[in-house]
């Protein structure tokens, strides 16, 4: 048998993963032997994640490794950079409030790094088995993170719920994968496509495809596989929720894109139906269900479901513009959510952290800076020009129109308009209601994250927009 382990240099495309895996183990050892080092270890983990982000961006080594199981191309590099940056910022958000949230343990940083490693494996998966290993590495770490605040019954419930539903989704995914393997005789994604292309359209493969997509829809929390999202987001400690809502979504979306574009390209008509259904259901349900929410985190959970629906609009188009749109969408979604969670985590009063939307009453008078950033994020999440959220939606809807999916685009715009109601209610509560409580001063790093994400969202068109579109174009181009 041939192996890639003949020389260290031949592993160049996998350097980021190797670095992170070794780093995670070193962090774990440091945590075990150095007492009270959790805060410092979070700092080291942030540094490590950012270093790997830079490595992924500047190191151009691409290729297929490990007998076709692992692929590093421009698409993987783009998505990995997003995942790594998302994880690093999610760790930054946890620094000031780790003790209050019961996550001031050194294992927190280690588990975030291991989850990130799992996401990178997902993004680079070129084989059904690698895909599953990546998903499990990521998901197991996330279950533990959700339940880490042991004394809180809600967090334990969230962890358990996430675990049970995650196991269910893994079961569906594995069932689909075994059907695909049974009917094509291949587990490698590009080889599956070759077999499908050569053989007749078989019901077994379609069955397997449907189960695979259902399993992955759990991971991106697309309707009707979204039920766990609000409960888990609400129950888990808020900094952990900030992590859940950002990096894993990007990784799962990247995996979904690679799977349907690489393996099931010949069956485009079949998976497009499923993706279009998931997309419409997510957009519409989230737009209506978000209206009834009083809890801020639950509202954000429904917002996340809706945004996954919008991103899937780009994927259902299935063309270069569509994939490029999804890539841009995920980057902007990540930025908006990091900014929003930075704002929420900075609002601590004498009664603890804000939980309900009504806790934000009169924020414009007590904390004008935070209120302004939240308002900007809300307007961007609605998709109002000239903010970043508008361009994200613009790209995916453009792709849908190019692919002649007019109904989908119209439903998307309508859902966007309906969801504006609950986003605007937050703005109304902040600016027109009377203040009720005093907040403690904002930690410096959260103010920095708010400032930087706010600046990027406002000035998207003038500053980073062009570069991001170029990057996304190269990334999407490597899949065609």
């Amino acid at each position, binding site marked *: 048998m041939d192996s890639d382990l003949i020389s260290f240099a031949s592993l160049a495309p996998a350097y980021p993963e190797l670095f992170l895996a070794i780093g995670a183990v070193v962090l774990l050892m440091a945590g075990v032997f150095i007492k009270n080092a959790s805060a410092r270890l979070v700092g080291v983990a942030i540094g490590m994640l950012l270093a790997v982000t830079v490595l992924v961006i500047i190191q151009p080594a691409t290729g297929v490794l490990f007998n076709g199981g692992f692929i590093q191309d421009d698409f993987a590099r783009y998505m990995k950079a997003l995942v790594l940056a998302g994880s690093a910022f999610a760790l930054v958000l946890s620094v000031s409030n780790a003790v209050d949230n019961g996550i001031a343990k050194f*294992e927190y940083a280690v588990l975030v790094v291991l989850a990130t490693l799992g996401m990178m494996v997902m993004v680079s998966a070129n084989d059904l088995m690698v895909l599953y290993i990546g998903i499990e590495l990521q998901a197991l770490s996330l279950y533990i993170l959700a339940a880490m605040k042991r004394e809180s019954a809600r967090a334990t419930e969230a962890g358990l719920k996430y675990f049970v539903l995650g196991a269910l989704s893994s079961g569906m995914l594995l069932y689909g994968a075994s059907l695909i393997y049974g009917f094509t005789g291949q587990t490698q994604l590009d080889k599956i496509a070759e077999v499908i292309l050569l053989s007749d359209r078989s019901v077994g493969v379609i069955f397997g495809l449907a189960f695979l997509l259902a399993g992955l829809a759990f991971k991106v929390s697309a309707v009707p596989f979204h039920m766990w999202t609000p409960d888990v987001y609400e129950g888990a400690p808020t900094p952990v929720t900030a992590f859940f809502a950002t990096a894993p979504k990007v990784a799962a979306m990247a995996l979904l894109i690679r799977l349907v574009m690489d393996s099931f390209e010949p069956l485009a008509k079949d998976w497009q139906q499923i993706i279009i259904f998931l997309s419409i259901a997510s957009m519409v349900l989230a737009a209506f269900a978000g209206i009834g929410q009083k809890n801020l985190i639950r509202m954000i959970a429904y917002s996340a479901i809706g945004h996954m629906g919008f991103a899937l609009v780009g994927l259902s188009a299935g063309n270069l513009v569509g994939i490029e749109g999804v890539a841009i969408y995920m980057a902007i979604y990540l930025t908006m959510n990091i900014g929003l969670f930075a704002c929420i985590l900075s609002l601590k009063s004498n009664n603890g952290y804000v939980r309900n939307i009504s806790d934000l009453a009169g924020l414009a008078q007590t904390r004008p800076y935070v209120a302004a950033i939240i308002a900007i994020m809300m307007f961007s999440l609605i998709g109002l020009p000239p903010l970043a959220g508008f361009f994200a939606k613009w790209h995916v809807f453009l792709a849908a129109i190019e692919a002649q999916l007019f109904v989908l685009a119209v439903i998307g715009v309508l859902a966007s308009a309906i969801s504006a109601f609950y986003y605007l209610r937050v703005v109304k509560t902040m600016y027109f209601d009377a203040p009720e409580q005093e907040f403690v001063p904002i930690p410096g790093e959260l103010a920095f994250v708010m400032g930087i994400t706010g600046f990027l969202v406002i000035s998207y068109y003038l500053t980073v927009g062009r570069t991001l579109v170029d990057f996304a174009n190269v990334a999407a181009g490597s899949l065609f």
Partner: protein
Amino acid sequence: MTLPVFFFYIFSGIAIASAVMVISSRNPVHSVLFLILAFINAAGIFMLAGAEFLAMILIIVYVGAVMVLFLFVVMMLDVDFADFKRGALQYMPVGVIVGVILLIELLMVAGSTFVSPELAAGSAMPINNAVSNTQALGEVLYTRYVFLFQGAGLILLVAMIGAIVLTLHHRKGVKRQDIGEQVARNPKTAIKVVKVKSGEGL
């Protein structure tokens, strides 16, 4: 009758008999022990079929780990098994349906071998008899599948971290053994000589 056939009937006979004993014995500890016997006989059947790796894994994983865990649970926890069995009759219909479905599936699998033997013969990946199972696995595990192997290792590491994070309590006031301190004791610090007046005690 050849020797393998003779052993096959011995192994399967004991396996079925101990499987019956698992569900019929009143003492849960006996049930677990009979389950172990059933597993060991199943391992014997695997051995006869030429799957020596599966046989060893069955003994190491099921008998060595899972069954010991079962025994721990049965012996450590005060579970009233008679209480469990009391309500069992109301689940009878569901159990019968599942049993019938399973039986039909088994008959279909067995039937297909008899009806069309060419189906069972034509397997996509013919077994290579030149190398043993263990060797065949060893040849690909660290070469072709090294990435998956290491990934699975990381997943196990995460599981271990998770088990510790979610269950380990650092309680205060717990008395722990400190071997250094024990060894450093000497008669001067450890023993106190007290003069006791006769008839008074301490």
